[in-house]
């Protein structure tokens, strides 16, 4: 199967290694992976900020770029959620575009969801030893229902121990532009999340979305925690290679 990898704008800019990790996992699952070179952003920032025309223009671009593939996979619950759930709303009531948006939505997946439920990845390529706790990112969890897949994949690593934190499903306070517009509230929410992470006693917090990752890491370091690692699930699953 031909999979179009939607790297996402944050991975592209901030953490290329997560993009390569996602690529490696998809290949390990036997997919033929294509990375369309002109991809930029799914349009979520515009959509969430009430700028429908901007979101729409980018959605059209993504649809045109990715509709040739059998599947579209993104290492992010919120970007996959944008395509899978919100494109439909963006083109509501429009015949041709809506049909294309729905077709794309039907074959778009968050990375771990795809690896477990579609590609049925049996063995993960990485080697990782240590204790981790998993933060459920909001969009992946509540828009796409991704709860078990990342845990199932992590469990395939022999050296790993998952220690669930309390309130793993509570938002970390990122919220896109919210984190800038209401930086003080956002940081206070991140602090609450960091306390839960630390209380779990795990050496690393693992998650599936770049926004949460930057938010949590930024708050941990500012608060003086230099040791708790913040890792994308794709990095962990390909670690040590």
């Amino acid at each position, binding site marked *: 199967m031909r999979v179009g990898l939607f790297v996402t704008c944050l991975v*592209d800019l901030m953490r*290329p290694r997560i993009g*390569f990790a996602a690529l490696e996992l998809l290949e390990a699952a036997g997919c033929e992976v294509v990375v369309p070179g002109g991809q930029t952003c799914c349009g979520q920032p515009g959509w969430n900020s009430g700028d429908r025309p901007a979101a729409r223009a980018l959605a059209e671009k993504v649809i045109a770029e990715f509709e040739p593939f059998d599947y579209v996979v993104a290492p992010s619950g919120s970007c996959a959620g944008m395509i899978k759930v919100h494109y439909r709303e963006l083109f509501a009531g429009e015949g041709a575009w809506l049909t294309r948006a729905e077709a794309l939505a039907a074959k778009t997946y968050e990375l771990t969801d795809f690896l477990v439920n579609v590609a049925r990845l049996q063995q993960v390529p990485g080697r990782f030893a240590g204790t981790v706790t998993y933060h459920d990112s909001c969009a992946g969890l*509540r828009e796409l229902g991704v709860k078990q897949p990342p845990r199932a994949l992590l469990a395939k690593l022999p050296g790993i121990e998952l220690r669930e934190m309390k309130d793993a499903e509570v938002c970390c306070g990122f919220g896109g532009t919210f984190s800038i517009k209401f930086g003080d509230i956002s940081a206070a929410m991140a602090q609450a999340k960091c306390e839960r992470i630390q209380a779990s006693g795990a050496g690393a917090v693992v998650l599936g979305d770049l926004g949460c990752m930057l938010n949590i890491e*930024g*708050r941990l370091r*500012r608060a003086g925690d230099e040791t708790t690692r913040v890792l994308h699930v794709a990095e962990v699953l390909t670690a040590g290679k």
Partner: protein
Amino acid sequence: MQVASLHFRERAAGALANERLQANLRRFGSGFADKRAAARRAFGEEAFEQLRDAAAEIRDRALGDLDAWLLRFEAEASRRGTTVLWAQDADEVCRLVLEVCRRHGLAKAIKSKSMLSEEAGLNDALGAAGVNVVETDLGEYILQLAGEPPSHIIAPAIHKDQDEVSALFVKHHGRPATDDIARMTREAREVLRPHFLSADLGISGGNFLVAETGSVAIVTNEGNGRMVTTLPRVHIAITGIEKVIPTLEDLSALNRLLPRSATGQDIENYFSILTGPRAPGDADGPEHMFVILVDNGRSGLVGGALKEMLRCIRCGACMNHCPVYQTVGGHSYGWVYPGPMGSVLTPAYQGIENALDLPQAATLCGACHVACPVKIPLPDLLRTLREMQTDRGLRPWGERAAFRAWAFAARRPWLYAWATRIAARLLHWMGGRRGRIARLPLAGRGWTLGRDFPAPEGRTFRDLYRVGRKRRA
């Protein structure tokens, strides 16, 4: 009540800096949310979800024919001796209540919880007209002593701790301080008892209006609601027009969800269905019963972009599950209703331009939507309000320009690649050896107020991928 929602930012900053409030909010924490989760489990998760679907459907059915159900309610209530009055706005609520006071010579009112009377600013209006008002819900009573508005729709004084309440009681009751909660409750009851017996007017809200019987359904946990609605000569129930539901059957379905969603109880301690004043031969009840049906902005939502909001049954689950609410508390929101539902209702009822921050002050995490017993898509409604702000030119110039520039670049891959390549390098350089930035300039300043900004790796994925492919080829 005055709308102070334009000052959300400052109020929230004050709340964050208030250590006592922060401690109280933390103590409240996920208490109600945990209880709801337990109640849902005990009910059966699948059955609970089916009930939510059914409840949303019941509410939509009522709202789809709102005028017809309201007229039916009026006809049935009138037939059973209740006087139904209609109020267009907050002022008219006060006017109607004062009119009843004048006509029946009423000088003293006891109240059970009513958020609508907060909307109307009723206590102040009654006080100005010389009618003595006593709140009898324990939380509301505490706030009346403190001179504060509620911070939560079902636990109005949740922002106060026991010491604060004790200090208020000492000041107003003139009795020695105690730290025993049972004794404090008893003390409040003793102070309130003479008021219950001497009042000639009882004012309540109404959780549901049942059209087929013309009844007002009221749920409370303290029993004060029952006394307020039966002891005084006159009872006035004040409710929003959206509270009407067709049948008693519907009431039973909704009331299986309300307490479970609110506090995790199977049923509230007191559940009253009030149908008309005291009839000959009745053991108790008021001589006169009034229901004031209030619009105050509600009819403007019917059939519109925010119509789902009218389903709300005021359970409080959305704020109990809201991490923003739990961080800044209810008073930050600046009007009667806090949390996610308040962030929709305040701009919807008081004008979008009067609550610009509220729809923005959310991470759209979706916890409220998942918890709402009538499945109101609160994040979608907040997003819709953001869109309305943009369409009406209410967003700051700089923000619009930034989005325009971003959208322009993101549609042109070459330009975008060039811009991100520079940004990745620059930010990487700014991050230095430790790989993080302590102070971002411009809009980024908001981020680094309370967090570092982890620096990028230095090159974009697409750059590296292109180079890698060339090498492989």
